[in-house]
């Protein structure tokens, strides 16, 4: 095994592959910095440029850019409260609060270090799990995926909010919003109200941008103040960023737990990589000493989602390479790229091309570390953005959001709905409904429904009694109820 890992490393560090990766990294970072453009956009945009490349060189080109996108997205999430892509929305919760308190540099340092190490962790797991994961992955059928997705929404809803009930309302609303458009069983359009746009349901990017970015922009416009409060602005130095990076080592427990969660969630085909940062955030909050201070600017609230977000990429490659089943939508597109290069992922792929599979793990690891280093060098400059007065920054952000919403799908309706969801975000923010839970419910809604229908068709209502399903339900209930055990015991005694 170690021989394969070493020879795969040799493949990756050939000059052609290395130069291609270094070219792709800045493209990925720029795409990550632009709200609305995500990792899937990076792969889609770069696929045409990879035609004619050697398979490994082409895949290195795509994967390096893809891995770098997340870094750019976390920077905008921390500095501006605007998630570059959906998984970065979990980083907004505490990262943006840290920036407001003048600790943006530390938050960036923590995010970059957690991302780089989380990415490395996912790749190491990928390298070691590839040969043995097949039976485990296959033990997860539709009922298990149904409960796993539902548990993901419940975690963030209950643990990430001031009021658990309001968190659950938000999570359920997210699932309900995902049900608009064509029904997956009979193909009947639901709740479309004669509006053609709704035939395909609401779109993710306008929802995420509207919910998270618009309330912040309206605040900036109203107050006219800079993001970092006057008097709390510390001059951002590399030292401050480095201190933030070292904070990851002070919270190694959170880092490892989040990385493991990210990798595991990434491995589950169809669960969706966007779940990982939210679940990791909720787990970090649950196990913290003062959970109520989460959301007010805790460095652990940055470390957990960032570590899991990048660790999941290694995890998502496991089912993509070993089964030919993509672990996320971006991996589905990557699967298409494999076919373009004449490679067919699946059990046979591992037998024939184990060196390429391990080389891909090397590439993701290298891209994570290299893009983190690049962002580290840029961080000092980027942090000056938080000192720009709100009356100048807000309209610029608004213009970026309008263009970002449009460019995802070339649809004017997306821009309109970004504003509609922005209004919803303002109301939810004002009355402390958990916006992250809504977003996660929306992301996982179609997965939950699809797995529900398949489970009902295959097992009937008894699908809840499958042993792995019962295990997932039990673990989820324990994790949700444990922080509220005193309240539950009180209710039990009263009853």
């Amino acid at each position, binding site marked *: 095994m170690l021989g394969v890992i070493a020879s795969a490393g040799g493949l990756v560090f050939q000059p052609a592959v290395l130069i291609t990766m270094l070219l792709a990294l800045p493209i990925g970072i720029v795409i990550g910095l632009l709200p609305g453009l995500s990792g899937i956009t990076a792969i889609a945009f770069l696929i045409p440029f990879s035609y004619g490349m050697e398979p490994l060189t082409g895949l290195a080109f795509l994967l390096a850019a893809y891995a770098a996108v997340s870094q750019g997205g976390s920077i905008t999430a921390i500095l501006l409260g605007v998630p570059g892509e959906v998984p970065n929305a979990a980083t907004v919760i505490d990262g943006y609060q840290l920036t407001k308190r003048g600790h943006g540099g530390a938050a960036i340092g923590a995010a970059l270090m957690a991302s780089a190490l989380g990415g490395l962790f996912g790749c190491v797991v990928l390298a070691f799990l590839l040969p043995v994961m097949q039976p485990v992955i296959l033990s997860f059928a539709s009922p298990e995926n149904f409960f796993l997705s539902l548990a993901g929404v419940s975690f963030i809803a209950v643990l990430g909010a001031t009021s658990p009930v309001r968190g659950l309302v938000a999570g359920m609303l997210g699932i309900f919003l995902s049900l608009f458009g064509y*029904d997956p069983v009979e193909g009947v359009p639901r709740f479309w109200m004669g509006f053609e746009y709704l035939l395909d349901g609401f779109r993710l990017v306008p929802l995420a941008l509207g919910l998270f970015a618009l309330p912040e922009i309206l605040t900036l416009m109203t107050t006219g103040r800079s993001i970092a409060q006057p008097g709390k602005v510390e001059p951002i130095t590399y030292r401050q960023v480095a201190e933030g990076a070292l904070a990851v080592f002070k919270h190694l427990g959170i880092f490892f737990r989040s990385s493991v969660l990210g990798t595991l969630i990434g491995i589950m085909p169809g669960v969706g990589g966007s779940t990982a940062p939210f679940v990791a955030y909720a787990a970090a909050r649950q196990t913290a000493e003062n959970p109520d201070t989460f959301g007010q600017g805790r460095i652990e609230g940055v470390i957990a989602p960032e570590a899991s977000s990048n660790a999941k990429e290694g995890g998502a490659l496991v089912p993509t390479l070993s089964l030919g089943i993509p672990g996320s939508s971006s991996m589905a597109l990557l699967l298409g790229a494999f076919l373009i290069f004449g490679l067919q992922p699946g059990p046979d792929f591992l037998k024939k091309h184990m060196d390429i599979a391990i080389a891909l793990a090397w590439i993701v690891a290298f891209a994570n570390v290299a893009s983190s280093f690049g962002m580290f060098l840029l961080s000092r400059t980027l942090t000056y953005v938080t000192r720009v007065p709100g009356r100048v920054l807000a309209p610029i952000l608004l213009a970026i959001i309008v263009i970002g919403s449009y460019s995802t799908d070339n649809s004017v309706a997306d821009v309109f709905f970004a504003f509609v969801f922005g209004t919803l975000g303002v109301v939810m923010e004002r009355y402390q409904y958990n916006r992250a839970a809504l977003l996660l419910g929306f992301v996982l809604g179609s997965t939950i429904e699809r797995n529900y229908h398949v489970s009902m068709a295959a097992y009937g209502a008894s699908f809840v009694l499958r042993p792995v399903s019962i295990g997932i339900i039990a673990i989820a209930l324990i994790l949700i109820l444990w922080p509220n055990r005193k309240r539950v015991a009180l209710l039990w005694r009263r009853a």
Partner: protein
Amino acid sequence: MNRAELIFPAALSAVVALLLFSGYFVLHYSFKVIAFPLLTGAALCALCLVDIVMTMRSFAAQPAAEQAQDSDRTFSLASLAWALSLLLFVYAFGFVFGPALYLLTYLRIHGSSWALSFGVAGASLAVTWGLFINLLRILLPIQPLWWPW
């Protein structure tokens, strides 16, 4: 706490109930099509009801002064109007010139210098025209949205 916060869960459950009702009784979706939305919608309405009850209970438990307290967020109607006016600019001048003109107008009216306003508007053109249209090949409409062709 504020009594206005009862409106959100109440309105939410009303809209969801209306959608489900119209789906089943007016649009005649089959049970298979409506089953999962029905489950989700029922759970959502039930949770909204619990939320309303809990909020009302908290009113009873809290002093009036605290009830009047709102979130520390402040949104002015003027800022909302300015945000929405970007849509008008985009409609009137397209996705390339609309945002640039909006930035120029907004920044000048809010006291920024001509140099800064023109600089930001120029940067906006560079991003939309240079980065999005020419480099990323994203087809942002250059012409106004009301333009017939």
